[in-house]
Structures are given as structure tokens and as C-alpha cells.
């Protein structure tokens, strides 16, 4: 059995962190230009804020929080679709984590659950099978979300539903891809990002290779990083060293789990069931071509978007005017630049999805930071 302590031991050693901070400061002094690092994944945003790493870093490093949180980038119309599905007679809507708290245009899934809809947050997508078996006369819709990391699990769920001939399991697919999001960020004429911390969980599945085009096309270092404080500090140091040497390379800091090629079996499973969706609208980033997945035609009989085609709303719904989630996800604004941050928008009553998810930039800033600017922080 895996010893749970192996998950973190050694990666929070104060001495290691202090010595990495010293090394970073040393290299930082040699740099002529500031470094604007985008941590694409909300998990890294969380690490930086939760462990107070900003306190340890020199002023010429700025973090820009990217669009790598599956909850944050979900446009309202997709949440509305989930809510409509949950309102159908004899439908059980199943989804993961924070998704049930994200506001749609008519409320969050949690609010629909309170009105009597059968909406079940689960820990493991495979729990869907048990729900389907226990409720043979109901239609169970799995509202699938997440990046490359979580797609294989949905594929396995689909495969098992097929094998077990569970005809009442359907899928509403919202799986999205990291590289097109990076392209969208970099194609913005105002983009300031000049280095990336790459999401490690994504790369465990897809391999570090998916970032190679970004390195070559934009001349930015990409370091694939783990999520512990030592991981992130070491990744920052590696980025600094590349910058100091005038290089832009793909580097894997999280080598204990990530390889260049990734998990080929998982990739094959995804290939088997999914194909690229021509276009998906991202919250804040707008429509991005080839940036998401959908079921292959041979699994159309499992596709909730087809099965419930007649009742699903398709109207695109933008965020609240005052909400700056879009600019924050593009790296053009900081959470505290948003006028409603901590006032009209807080984790209890979020206006924007960046405040909802524990991996959202606004949520991380709200929870952990603002010690020096409390008047702005908790109001």
C-alpha cells in the first residue's frame, strides 16, 4: 500500500525552501528584465498562495494566473445546460467537486439541488456506475469536466458503462485542453507572459511534449512542476536560470511522475472514445478552436447533448459586467484589480467562477493573501 506520507514528505522542508529562495534571489539580480510567469494551473496558484511563497520571491518576478482551472473556465451556458438536465424528469445529474457551486445564469447546481433536483457531487467518477445500477429506471448524466488529467477517467467510465450494458448512463462532455488555452493567452496582443509553469497533473497523462510547441513558438521557458512548495520554488529557479542564460527550453521538474511521452495507455483510451470538438467557448477567453473534446460518433448513444438536444439552451451568456474573471484568466488583471473582489464577489456569494473553485485565482487570493492590504481584502 502507498504510504500517504510519501505524497508530501521532503517537499516542505524549510531549509530547502530557504536555500532555493536564496538561489532565486541571486539569479534574479542578474536579470535585466522582469519575469512574468504564468502558472497555467489553479493548483499552482493555490500552492503559491497557500504556502505564502510570494513573500520569499524578489520583486522582478510576477505571477500571472492562467486559465487552468476547469471550474473557472466553464461558461455559464454549460452550467445552465447541466441545470436543465438536472430538471428533467427522472434524471440524476452527477458531477465532481466545486462544479456544483459555480453560478449559472439562473443559479448554481447547488441551488437547483436545494429545489429538489437530484444532483450528486461524487469523489470518483466510477461512483456513477453504482448510482446507475441502483437507479435502473432513471437516467444518470455524468457532467464531465476537467483538463487532460481527468479525461481518461471519463473514458474508463464510458468503457465500463458499455461493458456492463448500463444503458441509463449518459455524458455531458466538457473536457478541455491546455495547449490551445496557452495559444489563446499568447495570441492576445497585450500578453505579458514570458515563462510558464506547466501543470504537472496534465503532463502525467499527456506527457511534457504537449508544451514543446509553446516553447518553440513563443520562445518561453516551460517548466513542468509538481505542486509542493519545494517543487514550485525549484521550478521558479529553473525558469530563472534559463532566462539568465538566454534560453527557452522545456524542462521537467516533476520528474517523479512526468515523462516526455506521458501515459500512453491513458492517451489511447482517450483516443478511443473522444475526438476534438471544433470549438468550445471558454469563460473569459471566448471561443477557442479545437480546445475541447466530444464523444466520437460511435458513442452518440451516450451523449447527453444529443439525447436532450431539444431542451438544452444554447444561448451564450457572458459574465456579470463588473466581473473581471476574463481578464484575470488571460493574465491581464490581478484578482485585486477587480472592483467587486471581496465585496460583491466572495466565496460565499461568488459572482465569477474564479472565486468559486478552491483552485481559482480569486479564491486563493481571498483566502490566503492580502495581509498587507486588508482593507481591500476582506472588506
Amino acid at each position: 500500500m502507498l504510504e500517504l506520507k510519501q505524497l508530501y514528505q521532503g517537499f516542505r522542508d524549510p531549509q530547502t525552501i530557504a536555500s532555493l529562495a536564496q538561489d532565486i534571489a541571486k539569479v534574479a539580480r542578474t536579470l535585466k528584465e522582469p519575469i512574468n510567469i504564468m502558472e497555467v494551473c489553479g493548483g499552482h496558484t493555490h500552492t503559491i498562495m497557500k504556502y505564502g511563497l510570494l513573500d520569499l520571491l524578489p520583486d522582478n518576478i510576477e505571477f500571472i494566473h492562467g486559465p487552468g482551472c476547469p471550474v473557472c473556465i466553464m461558461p455559464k451556458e454549460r452550467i445552465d445546460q447541466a441545470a436543465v438536465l438536472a430538471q428533467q424528469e427522472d434524471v440524476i445529474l452527477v458531477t465532481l467537486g466545486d462544479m456544483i457551486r459555480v453560478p449559472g445564469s439562473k443559479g448554481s447546481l447547488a441551488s437547483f439541488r436545494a429545489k429538489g433536483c437530484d444532483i450528486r457531487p461524487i469523489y470518483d467518477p466510477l461512483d456513477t456506475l453504482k448510482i446507475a445500477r441502483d437507479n435502473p429506471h432513471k437516467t444518470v448524466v455524468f457532467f464531465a469536466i476537467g483538463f487532460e488529467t481527468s479525461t481518461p477517467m471519463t473514458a474508463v467510465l464510458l468503457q465500463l458503462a458499455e461493458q456492463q450494458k448500463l444503458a441509463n448512463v449518459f455524458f455531458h462532455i466538457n473536457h478541455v485542453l491546455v495547449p490551445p488555452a496557452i495559444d489563446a493567452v499568447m495570441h492576445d496582443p497585450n500578453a505579458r507572459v514570458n515563462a510558464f509553469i506547466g501543470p504537472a497533473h496534465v503532463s502525467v497523462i499527456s506527457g511534457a511534449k504537449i508544451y514543446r510547441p509553446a516553447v518553440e513558438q513563443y520562445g518561453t521557458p516551460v517548466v513542468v512542476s509538481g505542486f509542493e512548495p519545494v517543487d514550485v520554488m525549484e521550478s521558479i529557479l529553473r525558469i530563472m536560470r534559463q532566462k539568465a542564460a538566454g534560453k527557452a527550453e522545456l524542462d521537467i521538474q516533476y520528474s517523479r511522475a512526468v515523462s516526455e511521452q506521458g501515459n500512453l495507455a491513458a492517451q489511447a483510451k482517450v483516443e478511443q472514445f473522444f475526438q476534438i470538438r471544433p470549438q468550445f467557448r471558454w469563460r473569459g477567453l471566448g471561443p477557442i478552436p479545437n480546445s475541447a473534446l466530444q464523444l466520437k460518433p460511435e458513442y452518440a448513444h451516450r451523449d447527453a447533448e444529443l439525447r436532450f438536444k431539444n431542451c438544452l439552451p444554447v444561448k451564450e451568456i457572458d459574465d456579470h459586467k463588473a466581473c473581471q474573471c476574463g481578464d484575470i484568466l488571460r493574465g491581464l488583471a490581478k484578482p485585486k484589480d477587480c472592483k467587486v473582489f471581496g465585496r460583491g464577489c466572495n466565496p460565499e456569494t461568488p459572482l465569477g467562477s474564479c472565486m468559486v473553485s478552491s483552485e481559482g485565482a480569486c479564491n486563493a487570493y481571498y483566502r490566503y493573501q492580502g495581509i498587507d492590504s486588508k482593507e481591500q481584502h476582506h472588506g
Partner: protein
Amino acid sequence: MADVSTKEKAIQLSHGGGGKEMNKLIRELFFTEFDNPILRSEEDAAKLELQGATAFTTDSFTVSPLFFAGGDIGKLAVAGTVNDLAMMGAEPQYLSCSVIIEEGFSLKDLTTIVRSMAKELKQSGARIVCGDTKVVPKGCADGLFINTSGVGRILRPNISAANVAPGDAIIVSRDVGCHGAAILMAREGLSLESELQSDCATLWPVVEQLIAANIPLHAMRDATRGGLSAVLNEWAVAANVGITVNEASIPVCDEVKGLCELYGFEPMDLANEGTFILAVPNDIALGALEIMQRFGHCESAAIIGTVNDELPGKVILRTPWNTKRYLDLPQGELLPRIC
């Protein structure tokens, strides 16, 4: 031991109907296990002799699953209410016990739960002196709900969140997060192997010793739902003080740390059912700690922080590498991270 008929395997609606079956259930199970003269008198209300300042509290227990490593809903229902009294410096005396049972509930499980309550009562010497039994149709409750109310004689007045003051030390009675983690692990879908047990326990014995030793207790609170984070934030706001805690000093066992890693939780946000937080003047903190550490459940008690007047209403966590961040209240349902 109660002699409960084994023929009746499950609770029927008739067990709540006020007739023979209900009478049998109450006599053979509840009266036998909770036996005491006040309960046995079977009046409409218990007649109590209360003297001086009295603490009164109530709590409903709806935990799922009903049985978990280190306890069950019955142990929880007694320990929870007794602890609420203890945290006010009150000696737990009399409890009520109301059960709402779903039709079809296993009589064997009910018996186990009631016996567990009776066993836990012995830890504080409190007695259940009145109660109520309702049976609701299948589907109207999740197995079993228990409500317990309790009264206790206040031996040490003026223990209050409002009394937390700059210059106080914050002490936690043991490692945090065990109950929340044990419940998570017991829930469907989390098939992890672990020795982890809930911390569910009656806290009166150790509190009694702190009172006997004349420790000036400014505030005490058992860190139940919302965990350590919730208690500290409530205190910071209630007393309008700042609280700084050192992450490295907060005891957390390896299992809880590991589970938090897997699911993206913070140990400080997880529920406890036998862990309490104290605010005492800094100069007597070591003395209080010594008394606590002599007790079972409190061997790992630790001083985790101090109260100051720097950022009133805020709790600051100092990391082992000397950076700072807020330790905020946990939000919403505890849901695992997505990626």
C-alpha cells in the same frame, strides 16, 4: 445488557406508534441502557434539582455513515453535547435523548448505538433523564437522527470567546482533523486502508482537571464542524483580536496529512469530535499543557499560537519557512479538488 427480542429485526412504524411495540422498545432498550431513577419515574418531564449557574445546550446528529472508525452516532451524540457543556466550564449532569428512526432500521444497529451512548455517558457521569422516540416512513430520514440536549452546573464562570485577549497562548488538545478524515474515509467510494480513527471522545475529565488546577481559562471551544480554522476565526472576531498560529506547531497525524494531500483539504478545516482549543494567559500555558498531556486523547496537546492586537478579527498562519497567510474559515461543503 438489554434483552431485546431478536425476532424483530427491523424498526417498524409501529415502534413509534405509542402502543405496545413502542413501549417494549423503550423499556427493553432505552430504559435498560440509560437506567437511572429520574428516567425510571416515567413522568411527562424529568424533575431536576439544579443549583447555581447552569449551562444548557442542544445538538442534533445526522452523521453518515452511522458507524465509523473510532465511534458511531451514539457516542457522538453523547460526547458532542457533554463537550458543549464542558467547554463552558460546566459539569455535565442531565441529558435528553430524542431519536428519529427510519422505518426498516436494524434493531441490532440501534441497540449497538444506544449501548455506545450508555458507555460514553460513564466518561462524564451525566445521565439521560428524558427522551423521545419517533419512527418515520422509509425514505423520510437517513437511517437514524439523534438529538441530545444537556444541562450542567457551571463550575467556572466567565469562560467566553469574548475573553480571548492579547498575550494569551492558544493551545490545541491533540492532533486535528481525525474525525473529518475518518468520516471521509468511511464514506462510499473512498476505499483507503488506514488505521485512522475519529477522535470522538468526552472532554469533561480533562477540563475538570484544568478547573481543579485553577488554570485561568479565558476561552475553550471544541473544534467540531469547521475545525480549528472556524474556532480561531470565531474567536478573532468575537474578541476583536488578531491570532497568529505556527503551522509547524499544529499537531496533525500522517494519515490526516496524507488524506488532505489526496483530496486537497486542510487539516485545520476538518471536523473534530474530541479536540478542543484553549486560550489561556501565556505565562501559565506550559502548566496547562502539562496537565492536559497527562490525559488520554491529549498526549499530543501543543501550544500553537498567540493572541495579539495586530490585525483584529484575522487569523494569520505562519508557515515553517516563515511566510504568512490568512487562515480563513472553511467554505461550503468539503469537496475534493478536480485536478
